[in-house]
Structures are given as structure tokens and as C-alpha cells.
């Protein structure tokens, strides 16, 4: 247990395979770039995002790489700080909704009985309520939408679908023979849930987390765009909101609109790529089989050569009869 590598932890071997997948690599690079921007925003941004001391609606130039807004803010700096805020909301909201999904899906699915039925009904109710209107109502109801409130609203409305996925997976795993075998070996419920069931749905869990993140970032952008978020904050959503309100389209100030939209699209693509790769890695049927006749033939010839050398006299053993 001294050398820690993914190959040594069998429950994480899918991660090792994931790192070999090309789609996953591209996706991970994209995510890494955004995370880098978010973490080092203060050093990467050139100005304060709220600084309005520049000329309005300047197209991209050496001083303002992404141009300026109608209020004279630096779009590049806004994009960098917006990345930080959007990622923060996305990741946090996704964590909140995943915790909800575990509470309402996985745990009741394992315990079963009346508890499962009650929680399941509750989940179903949440599923039939359309997500965006619910968020809009909730956001409009809470007057001061701080970032924290936004995270909670997005997180607490977007878990139902994933709770169902986790529940059905838990249900099938809970009656598998290896779970029964663990019970008969004396394992308690907590251990069975954490050690037997959870490791078998790690990839589903990861996919759920990423799907949630994508959903949360889109929801944040949506709410902000409708003006229901915290408009004093700088996020991809508020960039779009102000650009739209400031008439960026009418003025042909494409540089004002583009970074927010592109940020969402590219980050979303990154998450989607990882999700596809996860599917391929964990679902063997989607894995492309590599058939390389040339290489097989070479390997075969080499094998024959070795065999002939081992027998000493080539063909002496084959003569027979």
C-alpha cells in the first residue's frame, strides 16, 4: 500500500482507462484550462472587472484583448472573473444536488420498505415540476439573490432525475449475489452501502456529478440572463445579461456577447466529452475493438520464430508418424 497508483486500486481502474481515452483527455484539458483560469483569476485578469474607466464599446485591441463593454469595462477581465464565479456556482450547486440525490435516491433504494416509497414519491413530485419555472419562481421569491442563495436554488431543484438514476442502480446492486454474500459474511448496512455498492457505481456517480455541473452552469446562465440572479456579480450569465441589455447585438459588439456564450459552450463540451468517455470506459459494448491484422501477423511470425528456436531443429518435432 506504499505505492499509490490508480492501477493498484482496482475500484479506480476505470479512471486509469479513462486517462487513456482520447475524448476524455481532450475534455480534461478543457476543464483544466478553465479551472486554471478560475483559480488564478486575480493574476490572469488585467483589470478589475468592475472598472468602468475605459472607452465604451472598443473592439478587441492590444490593451483590451476582448474589447470593452458599453459601460467601458474590460471584457477579458470580466470573462476571467466570470469563469471563477460560474465554476464556483456550477461545482457547488452540483455537489448540493448530488448530496440530495444520494439522500433521496441511493439510501432509500438500499433500505427499501416504506421509507423508500415515501422518498420515491417525493422524488417523483419533484421530477414532474419543470425545472426552470421552479427556479424562476424560487429566485423571484427570494429577493436578495446572493451567490450562496443561487447555489442553493439550483442545487435544490435539480436533483430529482439523478436521484432516480442512483436509486435504480442501487436497487439492482442491493440484490446482487455479492451483496448477499457480504451480508452473510456479517457486513453491516453502512459497510455494504459504502464498500460494496458505492464502488460499483463510482463511474455513474462521476457522470452524475458532471452532468449536474453542466446543468448548474446552464441554469445559472439562464437565471442571470433573465435578471433573476445577483446582477452585481460578474459571471458568464451576467455578462450575457448586460450585453443583451446594453444592446450589444444592435451595436454589432459581438466581442461583448461572445466570451460568455463561448465559455458556457466550450466548458459544456469538455464535460460532455468526459461523459462520453466514461460511457465508453465503463460500458464495454461501446468500446471500439482494435483489430490490427498486420500487427497480429507480425506477432504471430515472431512467436513461430521463437518456437522454432526452442525446439532446436526446426520441424524435427513435426515430422512424426
Amino acid at each position, binding site marked *: 500500500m506504499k505505492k499509490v497508483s490508480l492501477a493498484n486500486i482496482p475500484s479506480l481502474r476505470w479512471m486509469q482507462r479513462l486517462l487513456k481515452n482520447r475524448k476524455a483527455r481532450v475534455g480534461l484539458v478543457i476543464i483544466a484550462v478553465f479551472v486554471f483560469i478560475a483559480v488564478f483569476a486575480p493574476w490572469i485578469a488585467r483589470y478589475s472587472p468592475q472598472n468602468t474607466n475605459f472607452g465604451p464599446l472598443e473592439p478587441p485591441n492590444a490593451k483590451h484583448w476582448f474589447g470593452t463593454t458599453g459601460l467601458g469595462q474590460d471584457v477579458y477581465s470580466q470573462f476571467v472573473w466570470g469563469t471563477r464565479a460560474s465554476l464556483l456556482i456550477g461545482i457547488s450547486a452540483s455537489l448540493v444536488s448530488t448530496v440530495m440525490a444520494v439522500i433521496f435516491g441511493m439510501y432509500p433504494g438500499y433500505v427499501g420498505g416504506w421509507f423508500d416509497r415515501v422518498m420515491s414519491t417525493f422524488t417523483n413530485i419533484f421530477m414532474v415540476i419543470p425545472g426552470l419555472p421552479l427556479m424562476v419562481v424560487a429566485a423571484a421569491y427570494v429577493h436578495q439573490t446572493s451567490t450562496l442563495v443561487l447555489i442553493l436554488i439550483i442545487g435544490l431543484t435539480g436533483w430529482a432525475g439523478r436521484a432516480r438514476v442512483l436509486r435504480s442502480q442501487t436497487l439492482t446492486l442491493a440484490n446482487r449475489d455479492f451483496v448477499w454474500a457480504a451480508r452473510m459474511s456479517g457486513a453491516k448496512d453502512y459497510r455494504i452501502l459504502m464498500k460494496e455498492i458505492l464502488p460499483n457505481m463510482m463511474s455513474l456517480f462521476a457522470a452524475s456529478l458532471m452532468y449536474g455541473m453542466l446543468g448548474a452552469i446552464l441554469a445559472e446562465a439562464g437565471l442571470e440572463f433573465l435578471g433573476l440572479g445577483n446582477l452585481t456579480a460578474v459571471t458568464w450569465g451576467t455578462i450575457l445579461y448586460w450585453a443583451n441589455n446594453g444592446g450589444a447585438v444592435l451595436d454589432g459588439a459581438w466581442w461583448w456577447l461572445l466570451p460568455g456564450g463561448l465559455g458556457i459552450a466550450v466548458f459544456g463540451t469538455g464535460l460532455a466529452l468526459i461523459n462520453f468517455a466514461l460511457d465508453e470506459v465503463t460500458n464495454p459494448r461501446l468500446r471500439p475493438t482494435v483489430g490490427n491484422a498486420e500487427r497480429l501477423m507480425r506477432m504471430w511470425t515472431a512467436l513461430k520464430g521463437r518456437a522454432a528456436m526452442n525446439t532446436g531443429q526446426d520441424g*524435427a518435432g513435426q515430422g512424426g508418424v
Partner: protein
Amino acid sequence: MNGQSVTKERTPGERAAKQRATGVQGIRESAATEPTKTMASADPVLEVDGLSVVYESNGQLANAVNDVSFTVNQGQIVGLVGESGSGKSTLAYAIMRLLPANALVADGSVRIMGEDVYRMSDEQLRSTRWKRFSMVFQSALVALNPVLTIEWQFMEMFRIHRPDMSRAEARRHIVGLMELVRIHPDRLKTYPHELSGGMRQRIIIAMAIALDPDLVIMDEPTTALDSVVQRDILLEIRRIQQSRKFSVLFISHDLRLVQFLCHEIGVMYAGRMVESGPTSAIKAAGLHHPYTEGLIAATPTLAKRDRALLQGIGGQPPDLTRLPGGCAFHPRCPIARPVCKSTAPGRVTVGELNMLCHRTGFDE
């Protein structure tokens, strides 16, 4: 499909010819004459000549079938017996030219009714497969579409392969087939899951012989079934084979079944055919390949009352990517000698049997 088209180019006939020249022998000494298309009773239906199949497993080369030759004659049932990993199923898929993309026919040839399967065009193969040679798989659930009725699946087959047949004609044909495998034609309207395992396997057999093929390859057709049903199916196969006179290549891990059903038997171990000959000779006491002897001793039978009589072979089947040198069976062989570790055994003939072994008494 990419792998297959490459495979075709990679299996030139001259290699097969070379193999024949070096004197590879099979169950029957298959004369390396030009294929004839006349159908006399002793005509070979299937000729496998020096066949080697490799596939890639985790970046390593697995030698699943290694220089195997045998012949199945008209109206004959030939059995291949071996444990999982002996290459017997790979051999079956190679004959059908149904190998997955990570496998390759490295050497040798497969001829059905004199035609080289690996020299057929894709179009030729499509029309020939199922019409001239068909396959019964281990699991009927894999072969049958769960959402279509049995009748629909039969009709579809006739629509594709026998477009000359009218619907009424095809239906008459299907009813006849159902009667042949003794299932009430009412069952045609049902879905696969509504049938028992034995009935599904009968349906699969009916489908395999529907187009009057010359050869039916059966890969563990009864392994998933209970012993009572298993025996019924074996009797059924034998009865139908006797009335329709097609040839069968029957593959199983159970020596009892193969001895019960087949005229000739080949015993496979680690990709090689280590012993072959007529069933009577395989059953007879006397010198056999040590692996065959192990199989006989390890098979539980009702006659083995004394518990000491049941003796396992011991050890584990070999890893095809890391075959032991010399004779692949030597680590498990009770009579292994130093020469078995160093040198691959040559083929020897003892009476009607053909063996790959260094056993004393076999050497000339």
C-alpha cells in the same frame, strides 16, 4: 468488418498449399487433391487444413488454434472436445468466418464443399453462410431476437435466403420443420421468452437446418440445459441428422456427450488437437494421450461408485498468451518427461488414433 477484409488478403492459398506439402494430418488423412464438387457419401464437407488462429488479449498474442487439421465427411458427426480455453469455440467461429475484429486466421485454410471460406467475396459468403453451413450457438437467447415471434424470425430467414419461395410455401416449410423438432406449430406465434430452454434450443436447431445446409456447427448446444433436457436434445439431433443426412461438427467440454453422439472425435488442448480418431478407438482401453485419459478419469458418472475413482486432472487450463514451452500439457501431465518441457511433440499414429505426445510406446 475491416478486420475481416484484411484477413482475406492475409490468407493466401500458397500458405495452405505449403502446409499440405509439409504433411499435416487430420482426423482423417485428408488427401490434398483438388476439391471435387460431386457428392459421394465419403466426400469431405469440411476440410480444415493447418489452421492457426491468433487474437490479441490485453496487448498479448493468444494462440487460440494452433495448426489444426481435420475433415468432416458427408453425413458424419464429428466431435471436438476440450475445456474452456482449448480453442474449440474459436475454431468454430473461424470456420464460420465469424471471428471478432481482434482475431486473425494466421495460417491454414478452411474449405466447405471444396470452396475456401476465406477466399469467398463478402457477397458469396453472405449467400453461402446459413445455406450451406450454419451454426447452433450455446445460448439460444443470443441467437433469437427477443421482441419478434418465432414465426417472424423463420419467415425473415426464408425471405432473405429463399426469395423464390412464396409465403405459403415458406410457411408450409416452417410447419414441417417444427414437426421435425417436435414442437407444436402453435408455438410459432410465441416469443422466445415464452418457451422453455429446451424448446428454444430445438427452435435454433430447426433454424440451423431450415435451408438444408451441408454442415451444421454446434457449439455447446446443450451446456445451458438440464441433464434430462440435454439428453432429449442429443437424441433429437441424432434422429434429425439421420433423416436429413447433413454433417455436424459438435463442440463440447463434456466427453460423455461427444462419445454418445459422434462418429469421430478430436480432443483439443491449448489450441492443438492432441488426439483424434473414431469414437470406438477413443472409447477403447489402451494407450491414449494423457490428457484424454485425464478427461475420462475426471468425468463424474453414475458408474463411478467408489469415490477414489473420480480423479481430477489437477492444475489449471493454460493461459493461451503464455503457453508453456515444449508440450503445452506437460505441467499437468502425470507422465511428463524432460523432453516434454523442451520439445513440442510430433504427431504419432497408434492404431486408428492420431496423437501429439512424447509418450514412450508411441515413439517408433
